[in-house]
C-alpha cells in the first residue's frame, strides 16, 4: 500500500482545493533547508576552505614539487577538479542524508508523511537544497584554489553542468542513505566504507595512467573515476575516460537513484510502519 503515490490523481474527482503541484510545499522545505545551512554558515564555508588549503599545502606543495606536470598541466592545477569533486561527493551525501535522517530521528517526519506532497516534490525539495549547498561549496573551493594556482576552465558550461549533475546525483544517493539508516552509525557507514575509498581511488590526485595496468583496469569500475575525469576535462580538455562515458555514467547513476526512491516511496520503506 502506498500512501504517497508517485502519480497524481485524475483531474475529475478533484475537490475545491486540490493542488496539481504543491509548489508552496516544495519551496517551504527548500527555503527551510537553505536557512538551516545559513545558520551554520561559518562551519559550512570555513571547513571546506581550510580542508582545500591543507590539500594544496600537502599535495600541491610537497608532492607537486616532485611531480611537475600531469598531462601537460601543473600538478597543483591538475588536482583542483579532483579536490572539488572530493568535497562535492562528501558534502552532497552528508547534507542530503542528514536532512532526511534528522526528522526521522526526532519524529518530526510525521508532518512530511501526512502533508499533501508527492514523493517527487519531497525529493525535489530536499535534494534540490542539498545540491544547491554542494554547488555553492564547489564554487567556494574553486575560488580558494585560485588563490594557490592558476586554474583555467576551457569549457565553463560543461564545468557547471558536471558540478550540478554530480551534486544532484550524490544528493539523491545521500537521501537514500538517510532514509535507509536506522542509526547515526549507519548514517556514517556508507560514506566511510564506500564513498571515501572510492573518492581517494578515483583519480582525484593522480591520473589513472600513472597506475600499474591491473589497477588502471580496476579503476574503470570505480564510478568516481568517471566523474573526476569528466570534470577535469571541462577544465583542461584532458581526461582519463571520454566525456561521453562520464556523462553516460552520471546519468545512469541518477537514474538508478531515482528508481530506488520511487520504490521507497511506493512501499513506504523505513518511512511508514
Amino acid at each position, binding site marked *: 500500500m502506498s500512501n504517497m503515490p508517485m502519480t497524481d490523481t485524475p483531474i475529475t474527482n478533484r*475537490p475545491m482545493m486540490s493542488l496539481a503541484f504543491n509548489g508552496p510545499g516544495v519551496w517551504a522545505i527548500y527555503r527551510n533547508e537553505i536557512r538551516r545551512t545559513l545558520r551554520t554558515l561559518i562551519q559550512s564555508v570555513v571547513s571546506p576552505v581550510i580542508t582545500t588549503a591543507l590539500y594544496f599545502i600537502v599535495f600541491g606543495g610537497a608532492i607537486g614539487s616532485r611531480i611537475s606536470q600531469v598531462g601537460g598541466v601543473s600538478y597543483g592545477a591538475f588536482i583542483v577538479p579532483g579536490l572539488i569533486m572530493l568535497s562535492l561527493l562528501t558534502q552532497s551525501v552528508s547534507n542530503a542524508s542528514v536532512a532526511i535522517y534528522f526528522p526521522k530521528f526526532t519524529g518530526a517526519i510525521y508532518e512530511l508523511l501526512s502533508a*499533501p506532497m508527492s514523493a517527487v516534490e519531497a525529493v525535489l525539495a530536499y535534494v534540490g537544497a542539498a545540491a544547491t549547498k554542494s554547488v555553492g561549496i564547489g564554487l567556494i573551493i574553486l575560488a580558494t584554489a585560485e588563490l594557490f594556482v592558476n586554474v583555467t576552465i576551457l569549457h565553463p558550461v560543461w564545468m557547471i553542468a558536471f558540478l550540478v549533475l554530480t551534486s544532484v546525483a550524490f544528493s539523491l544517493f545521500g537521501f537514500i542513505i538517510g532514509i535507509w539508516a536506522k542509526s547515526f552509525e549507519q548514517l556514517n557507514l556508507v560514506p566511510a566504507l564506500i564513498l571515501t575509498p572510492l573518492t581517494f581511488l578515483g583519480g582525484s590526485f593522480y591520473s589513472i595512467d600513472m597506475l600499474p595496468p591491473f589497477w588502471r583496469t580496476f579503476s574503470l569500475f570505480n564510478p568516481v573515476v568517471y566523474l573526476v575525469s569528466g570534470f577535469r576535462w571541462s577544465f583542461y580538455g584532458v581526461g582519463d575516460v571520454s566525456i561521453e562515458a562520464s556523462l553516460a555514467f552520471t546519468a545512469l547513476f541518477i537514474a538508478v537513484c531515482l528508481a530506488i526512491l520511487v520504490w521507497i516511496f511506493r512501499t513506504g520503506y523505513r518511512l511508514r510502519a
Partner: protein
Amino acid sequence: MPPILSLAHLSKVYASGFEALHDVNLEIAQGEIFALLGPNGAGKTTLISIVCGSVNKSGGQVLVGGLDNLTNYRATRSRIGLVPQEIALDIFSTVWSNVRLSRGLFGKRPDDAYLEGLLKDLSLWEKRDSPVIQLSGGMKRRTMIAKALSHQPDILFLDEPTAGVDVNLRRDMWALVRKLRETGVTIILTTHYIEEAEEMADRVGVMKEGRLALVEDKVALMRRLGKRHLSLTLKTPLAVLPEALSDWSLSLAAEGSRLVYDFDAKAPDNGMPALLQKLDSLGVGYSDLETSNSTLEDIFVSLVEAKRP
C-alpha cells in the same frame, strides 16, 4: 450531509505481526467533536496515523469528505491537521520558522497575518523568534498545535492533547477546541480522561484491543457513567427479592446477604429515600449501607464485555 470522515473495515497488522486494528467502522459528521477513549495500546494512535497518512493501512478504506485518502491524498490531507501524541519538532528552528514551514508543506501560500493571530491565540507570539530547544514543554506542545493549525484545516486530530500537560494548558486547550468548533472545524481527540470527553465531546468511541467496542452519544454515555451503586448489608439474608421492590433495579449479592441498588446519580429523583422507606415498611433490616461510583475502568470493562459475543 455525507460524513466528513468514514472508516470502513479498517484493519492494521504491523510488520511484527501485531494486529493493532481489527475491522474498525466509524462515521464522523462535519463539525462534530468526537472523543476516542481507550486504554494504552488500544489502537487509537494507529487509527489516527492511518487517516493522516503516516502509517499504511492493511485493509479497509478511509474516506475524507467522500474522497479516498490514498487516491485523493492531496485533497484529503490538505484538510487535515494533526497534533501527534509525542512532541516532535525541528528543535533548532524558531517557532516562527516551524509554523511557516508547516503551512507551506500543506500547500498554503504564506499568510503571516494569520500565523501571527494563531501564535497570539496560543500565547506563543512572544516566543516566535526563540529556537524551539529553548522552550518549556508546555510551549513546545503549543508549538505542535500551532503547526497543526497553520494551514487552517477543517478536520483536526488531537492525540492525547492533555496527557501530562499543566492545568493552564489544559484549560487553554479546551477553550481552543470550543473556539474551533464554532468555526465549524471537526475535531477528533483521543484521551484517557473521561472528564475531558465529558467536557468537550459530542460523541464518544471506546476502543479496546484494536476494536471499536462502542460509539455512543456523550449524553447517553454519561448517563451510564453517572451510575452509582447503593449496597446494603442485610441483617437477615433474602432468598428472593420481594415483589414489592420491583420498582427499583435491585440485585442480591453475597448469597442474599447484600442488596445492591443501581441508580442514576444525576437523575433529579434517584429513588433512594423511597427505597429505604419501603424496606422499613417491609421490615427488611440492614446493618450497613454504602454507595460507590462507577469508575472509568468499570465502564470500559462493562461496555466492552457487553459488546463481545
